[in-house]
């Protein structure tokens, strides 16, 4: 599983990409919680984070499979 962080979340997590050692997370919510425990600053932003799984926006309860690409995305500001 690959985990990506963008924008502000990348700064808070200290890196853009992690080939998750948290492969025991069953859902996106659990995966985020594991990172939030490690990087407490991330936890504060939980309400303004959306997640994607394999490049589609995904609900927090989305189940994870090995090989998934999960990304945590802050509010988008393109344009």
């Amino acid at each position, binding site marked *: 599983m690959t985990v990506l962080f963008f924008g502000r979340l990348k700064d808070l997590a200290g890196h853009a990409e992690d080939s998750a050692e948290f492969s025991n997370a069953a859902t996106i919510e659990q995966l985020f919680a594991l990172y939030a425990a490690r990087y407490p600053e991330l936890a504060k932003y939980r309400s303004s984070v959306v997640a994607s799984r394999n*490049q589609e926006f995904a609900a927090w309860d989305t189940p994870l499979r090995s090989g998934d690409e999960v990304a945590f995305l802050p509010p988008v*500001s393109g*344009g």
Partner: protein
Amino acid sequence: MATLPHDDIYQLVREPIDMAALARLVRAPEDGAIVTFDGFVRNQSHNRATLYLDYEAYESMALAKMREIGLQMHEKYRIHRVAMVHRLGRLEIGETSVYIAVSAPHRAAAFDACRFAIDTLKRTVPIWKKEYFEDGAVWADGELPPVPTATPRAKPAS
């Protein structure tokens, strides 16, 4: 799933956007109108003088979302071709960050589709800008894309 016309253009680029070339590419004899949107870097944000912006994207997903917007445009409006290009990296004041050109037989559809495109892009395409000021830098406020609230439950095996 419907496919995009092959002569549409959806790109992320790191060089200045050639707007005139894109407008020419969407122009065809059967069209009667082209509406374009040129979004460029403003010299201030919340009354602070901006030095420059730095754009980053989740590139593969951003391109997929831009193409999705294109598909919706063709479904909703009677348009001909779309060019949608977003620039990444460092942009100076006045430089174009996003450019959209829409051709159509008649102007109303082109106006409506172009407005839909930029509004949807700003809400759903994973691109972020960091604003640099004299005294520091901040990630710009943005919009949280709409996300499914819960995944559909798998049907129990019968």
